[in-house]
């Protein structure tokens, strides 16, 4: 019973993590493509590649900053006694 329950819970957790990761990829890819690939050529130039990598790193950082800001705000609105959902990346 316990192991089946754990398996179900882990499966649900994995779903949440997967959706989160997919959303992160979609959002960052769209924005970084918009910014870095202005005139699409027949292949990605090295400049474009470097821009995309840097942009992605930056987007992950921005995501972390926003997560912390949101968590901090939720904490101060609800008070420290309330149980809150913790934002996680992966």
């Amino acid at each position, binding site marked *: *019973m316990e192991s*089946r*329950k754990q398996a*179900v*819970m882990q499966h*649900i*957790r994995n779903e*949440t993590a997967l*959706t*989160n990761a997919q*959303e*992160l990829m979609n*959002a960052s890819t769209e*924005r*970084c493509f918009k*910014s*870095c690939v202005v005139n699409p050529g027949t292949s990605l130039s090295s400049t474009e590649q*470097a*821009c995309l*990598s*840097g*942009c992605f*790193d*930056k*987007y992950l*950082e*921005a*995501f972390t*900053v*926003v*997560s*912390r*800001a*949101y968590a901090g*705000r*939720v904490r101060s609105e609800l008070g420290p006694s309330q149980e809150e*959902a*913790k*934002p996680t990346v992966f």
Partner: protein
Amino acid sequence: MSDSLQLDAATQNELQKFVAQETAQRKVNESIHQFTGLCWDKCITNVTSGRLAPTEASCLTNCVGRFLDASLQLVRDVENKRNQIGHA
């Protein structure tokens, strides 16, 4: 061995609570993605630098706070309008 998920009431209860928590977590994740996109568009000028500048980081933090403030204010405004209509 049966394939169906046969669980006792206590376990079902526990799972229900867990699913409720997980659903709340997903809503939080969704909000964070929404804010990141919104605030990235407002705050990030130089995409190529690869690291977040301190000004950009504080802009992102402010952006989240102000969005939530704006949301709260609009809810209050709607409430006020409803009350006005009620007393008309």
